[in-house]
């Protein structure tokens, strides 16, 4: 379990700036999908109950069969909701004053975790594209290093502009701190 104050391999003076999950609209989508999966059969049952379904439930063979099928469906949809939520929840981006961690759950037994020192970050870009992202302020943040390929992508995170500004501010503070400590360790030139 990741504890917010005790990340793996914590460095000296390292502080967590923020944890990021995807925007809450992902959870809302899961909720609405599950609601539809429960509502649509319920509506069908409601309209066809007395004419078709009720006589079948009293059948000594088809009644139990219908019961088992309905039970499996209800349990299966609930399990699906949980699986989708776990997939959403285990995607996390952690930004500290020293590094950026990108942890993505790609499937039940497929997880990738990447770490990027803050001092190699060259460019941070935020993108908000579309009506819903604009209204609810969520989007993508791209973290670019000096290399050619884009390293980290924060997908569907809330307040991407603020995330970008916070990362840049943290980067600047860290660079100032490193420069200050570098100057203090450089020996003074000899005056001959």
């Amino acid at each position: 379990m990741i504890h917010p104050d005790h990340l793996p391999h914590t460095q000296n003076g390292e502080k967590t700036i923020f944890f990021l999950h995807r925007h809450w609209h992902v959870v809302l989508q899961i909720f609405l999908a599950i609601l539809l999966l429960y509502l649509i059969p319920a509506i069908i049952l409601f309209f066809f109950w007395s004419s078709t379904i009720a006589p079948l439930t009293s059948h000594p063979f088809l009644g139990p069969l219908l019961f088992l099928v309905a039970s499996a469906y209800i349990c299966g949809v609930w399990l699906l909701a949980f699986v989708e939520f776990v997939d959403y929840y285990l995607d996390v981006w952690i930004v500290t004053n020293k590094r950026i961690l990108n942890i993505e759950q790609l499937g039940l037994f497929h997880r990738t975790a990447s770490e990027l020192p803050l001092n190699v970050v060259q460019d941070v870009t935020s993108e908000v594209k579309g009506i819903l992202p604009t209204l609810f302020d969520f989007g993508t943040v791209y973290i670019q290093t000096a290399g050619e390929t884009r390293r980290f992508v924060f997908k569907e995170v809330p307040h991407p502009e603020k995330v970008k500004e916070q990362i840049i501010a943290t980067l600047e503070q860290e660079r100032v701190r490193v420069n200050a400590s570098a100057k203090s360790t450089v020996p003074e030139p000899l005056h001959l």
Partner: protein
Amino acid sequence: MNISIPLFILLVPFALFLLFYIFYSLFNLYHLLRYGISEYKMFLVIVVYMGISIFLFGSVLYGFQQFDWLVSFDLSSIFSNTSTHLFEPIL
């Protein structure tokens, strides 16, 4: 030739499904506990999920009691007792 099917045979695939449900849930719970962030929201989700799962299982077990699973049926008699017109009331 009449083929007789005991009703409890239907419970076998359902039991397999329940086993799959339990193991898949445990895998997901394991991932949450191992890789999740230690915060109250995660524990709340786990409690809600397990609570509703227990409720569903209890409801299913209660529903089991409404049927006699030991009876057997002929395949031919199963389909002769149902209406061929699905959307018409059975007279």
